[in-house]
């Protein structure tokens, strides 16, 4: 029986900061940074938002769009590199928030920016084998870059949740494939507040090699070529990498544009591909084919070949906010407020 996406929900915090404002504080050319990274603004979480609240909001939106009994959800995985607790699962709070507790399997996943898609693959297997009727995979992050570091221009917040099952699927998984090697391009040691990265090493041997290989191998396995897809959703650490990757793979700018959110909201890490998928599903028509490729530093890529089904016609998209709606009603912050909200100011006591 086919396994696919039954519903989805997304959430992006409303605060934004621009590269120009960050550059102003650190004596760097923010405009050049913005152009170089193709990031016009990035999302910033409120002090009362974290991966748990973002995941819960996305999962609640996902549940509002369908008439599914939460008790039928057999698994919930949250992939993130900014879980609020080192020990105490994010997923337990999220499961309770959508009333899927207590008879379900929950775990928090970590694989840099691709832990959310790793969760999708796990749930696909569990649902496909008949172990359970539905499973939830969430990718969400409230990532941080060290003040003044290049990462500070991109590291943002957001996430999306996917309900995966076999009945009334709005998009079918035709196949999935992963490409994984030991490539130390980006890491964060236990107890360190900010990640470290290999600068230019994060490009060719890391992002481009893994995303490119996963995409090519996926198409080879499916017997497809770039022209067979309506949308390409790639991991998007900045706006430039996915555009360049798309062109290297033979995809057009039009195919990659709908799922490219980084220019508006920055790099949402584990949220990036799930959010890009949500943006595509917000407008997708029956028969649309999507190639989605996530990337996690360290390093690995998960590729998904997806076809939108007829069921999307009757799908209640309007029951939860679309990605476009989350791009409105935003509020721009100055660097001082951003620093206060992100806990970068040393407070007394």
């Amino acid at each position: 029986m086919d396994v696919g996406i039954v519903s989805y929900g997304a959430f992006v915090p409303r605060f934004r900061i621009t590269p120009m404002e960050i550059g102003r504080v650190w004596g760097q050319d923010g405009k050049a940074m913005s152009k170089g990274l193709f990031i016009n603004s990035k999302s910033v979480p409120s002090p009362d938002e974290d991966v748990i609240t973002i995941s819960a909001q996305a999962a609640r939106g996902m549940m509002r769009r369908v008439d599914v009994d939460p008790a039928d959800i057999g698994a919930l995985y949250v992939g993130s590199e900014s879980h609020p607790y080192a020990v105490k699962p994010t997923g337990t709070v999220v499961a309770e928030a959508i009333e899927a507790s207590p008879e379900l399997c929950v775990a928090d996943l970590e694989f840099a920016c691709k832990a959310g898609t790793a969760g999708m693959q796990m749930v696909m297997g569990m649902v496909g084998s008949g172990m359970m009727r539905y499973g939830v995979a969430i990718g969400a992050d409230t990532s941080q870059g060290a003040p003044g570091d290049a990462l500070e221009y991109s590291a943002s917040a957001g996430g999306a949740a996917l309900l995966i099952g076999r009945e009334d699927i709005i998009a079918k998984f035709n196949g999935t494939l992963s490409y994984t090697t030991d490539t130390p391009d980006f890491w964060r040691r236990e107890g360190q507040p900010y990640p470290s990265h290999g600068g230019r090493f994060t490009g060719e041997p890391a992002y481009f090699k893994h995303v490119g290989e996963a995409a090519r191998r996926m198409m080879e396995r499916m017997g497809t070529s770039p022209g067979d897809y309506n949308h390409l959703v790639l991991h998007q650490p900045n706006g430039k990498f996915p555009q360049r990757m798309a062109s290297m793979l033979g995809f057009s700018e039009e195919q990659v544009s709908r799922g490219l959110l980084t220019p508006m909201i920055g790099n949402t890490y584990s949220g990036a591909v799930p959010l890009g998928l949500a943006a595509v599903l917000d407008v997708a028509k029956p028969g649309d084919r999507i190639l989605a490729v996530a990337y996690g530093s360290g390093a690995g890529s998960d590729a998904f070949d997806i076809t939108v089904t007829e069921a999307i016609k009757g799908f209640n998209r309007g029951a939860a906010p679309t990605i476009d709606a989350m791009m409105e009603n935003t509020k721009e912050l100055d660097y001082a407020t951003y620093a206060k909200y992100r806990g970068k100011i040393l407070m007394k006591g």
Partner: protein
Amino acid sequence: MTVARFWRDIPSRYNLYGSRCASCGKVYFPVRHICPKCRRSSIGKMERHRLSGKGRVHSFSVVHDAPPQLAVLKPYAVAIVEMDEGVKVTGQLVDVEIEEIDIGMGVEAVLRKLGDEGPAGIIHYGFKFSPRFD
């Protein structure tokens, strides 16, 4: 607040579980074990009832002198929200500018961080209200 005390409130704080009197139909939040209207005849008839999470701002106040945990958010608004079920619930308003808040504006419950027990302590989550989506 102790860990156990907060844990007991999770259904109310995450999903707005209150009570409904099966005798007169009145909805209460937080949970009540006796209906003050029906009194004795409500004993054993108080049902667990989940609020829809949707309501309207009945009144609000802007907090300028905040407790330490919320100092980073000040000034912020706290509202009495009249829920669609008729019961009034107090909560913080989020994702809205203070000058945009009106009495009667539609709001819905969202899950947010309420505070924590210090950097090594438990984090408390619960409802706040944001402008209604639909």
